[in-house]
């Protein structure tokens, strides 16, 4: 099986004034295609940094990051943007929908950025994915007219509509109550199984970790444990 992403001895150091702060200190991971993986760890353990590296939002200071068999090293800001547009989907803790656009328009945005020129095709794809996430009746609402869980469903639809190799979700349930969080995790897991899209999400919520088929724990910028639970828990 090909890897969705591969990290080889990845390091990331931030400079704060004269101080060098290592956030990731040598992580090697292979994320297989179709993975449903959680990255867990306390604040400051490097979760977000690792997710940013996997999301081609950032490039490592050492080691190599490959996504869809392509190294991100040496890519310019513009090439990184194009790369993200083509291969990656994002789900954020704070949903980050554009408030002036309807659910439908928010989901259509990545397709427009990708230059999917045919309006009819875009419409069809947007409606299909919004139906898949359970928002068939709410497509023309704006984010402010949706609950948190519904907004996160729009965000998942937005991440999936362009059929990315890998979806990265940074604490996707942190702003949701536990019941809604469970629904969102179930939805992501369901989409992962149906579409084969790889998901990597960060969390420090044990309930959320239970949904993962693979759990990587970070501590101080290093992998502390890598636990596979194939055929694992799913929804409880």
């Amino acid at each position, binding site marked *: 099986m090909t890897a969705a992403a591969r990290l080889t001895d990845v390091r990331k150091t931030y400079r704060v004034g004269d101080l060098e702060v290592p956030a990731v200190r040598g992580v090697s991971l292979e994320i297989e295609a179709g993975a449903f993986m959680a990255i867990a760890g306390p604040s400051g353990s490097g979760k977000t940094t690792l997710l940013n590296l996997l999301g081609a939002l950032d490039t490592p200071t050492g080691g190599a990051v490959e996504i869809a068999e392509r190294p991100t090293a040496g890519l310019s*800001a*513009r090439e990184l*943007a194009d790369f*993200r547009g*083509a291969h990656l989907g994002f789900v954020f803790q704070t949903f*980050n929908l554009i408030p002036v656009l309807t659910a439908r328009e928010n989901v259509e945005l990545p397709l427009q950025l990708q230059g999917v020129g045919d309006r009819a095709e875009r419409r069809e794809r947007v409606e299909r994915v919004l139906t898949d996430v359970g928002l068939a009746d709410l497509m023309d609402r704006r984010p402010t007219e949706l609950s948190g869980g519904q907004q996160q469903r729009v965000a998942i639809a937005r991440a999936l509509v362009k059929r990315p190799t890998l979806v990265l979700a940074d604490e996707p349930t942190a702003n949701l109550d536990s019941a809604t969080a469970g629904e969102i995790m179930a939805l992501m897991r369901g989409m992962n199984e149906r579409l084969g899209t790889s998901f990597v999400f960060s969390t420090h919520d044990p309930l959320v970790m239970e949904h993962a088929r693979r759990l990587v724990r970070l501590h101080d910028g290093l992998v502390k444990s890598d636990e596979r639970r194939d055929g694992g828990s799913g929804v409880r």
Partner: protein
Amino acid sequence: MSAEARAGRLGFFTLGRLAWRNLRRNRRRTWITAVTVAVAVLLMQFAMALMMGVERQSFDNLINYQTGHAKVFANGYYAAREDLPLDRGIAAAETLQVRLRAVPGVQATAARLTFQAQLSNGSDQLPCVGIGIDVGGSDTDVFRIPQAVTDGAYLEPDRLGMLIGGGLAEVLGVGLGDWLTVLAKTLNGAFEAVDLEVVGVLGTGNPAIDRGTFLVPLALAQTMLAMPGAATEIAVRFRPAAREGATLGRLRAAAAESGLDARGWREIEFDFLALVSAKRTGRTVALVVFLTVALVGVTNTILMAAFERTREIGMLMALGLRGSGVRRLFLAEGALLGLLGGAVGTLVGAVLIAWLAVSGLDIASVYGDLDIGYPVQDRIYTAFDAGALLFGWLLAVALAALASLYPAARASRLDPVEALRHV
């Protein structure tokens, strides 16, 4: 456009729609900015229309009171015109006019005899320019002198009278019914004097006429200067619908056949036109600077909008929007502000300009007797020019986009990771 070329950007309509909705997020700020733009554009449109109106009026003034559309001279006169040489006149003026009137596009012609003279009120004597005009005949077909008579009446063919420029009358201390002595050198070099009654005072707005010229009947001037039937120039008016350049070309050809020399008014008034053109350039620069300064509000608005939406920019970048796409997003918002504010300013301006194009603005009451540097009379009328209004509007759009260049460029250089962390 191919998918490859469009990757990382948003299409024109998506961009426009997004910009419009984003502007509506903070309506009050948008309105305040749009109103500033509108006021600036209104002032600019009005200033442009006023200047253009003054220019057009000054051109009409020159044509109506001084040059006609063209003048025909004897060969050699034009080069020596500063000296008003009587020995380079046109002998058989009448027959020549018949030929010139036959030129397509020519509406009327009038013979004039211009000469150097001294005007005396008995105690003081002033050098001036005298012009013999065809009073009973065709002068009023070419020129609009009767409209410029501010006091008294127009000349009569058989009366020993003169029309005198208002400024000249003031200097000589004369008014209607007073007599002045005209002293001039005839074609033969002898001096001749004649006493004439001031029958009318001229206020053309053109200093060259008002401060230094008097008009007498052509026959009287011909007799006095011993030049019967002669003139120094034939002034020509074109038909309103005639194309100026083409008509002038034909007039030149016809004049050349008769061994004469035709010159268009733009050539005769070359110095004035050069001055107008220089003034116009200076004014345009001043207006663009003014508008640019006025549009700093747009810079501020876009700067704040970009700051407020930092995380959204990060999200869009994560989705694959390139830096150039972010730049375009905010440029579109600025341009849209210019488009909206400019539309309001231009509309209000158009109404005001249309009104003053008909009713005119009394500059005498605003400036008093101040010389504004253009030969115009007391009322000036704005020029209603749809093309100029459209230009002003588009200029506002372009400058508003320019004003958002800095905040847009700043937003486009954001690091997506930093932007996403922004609270």
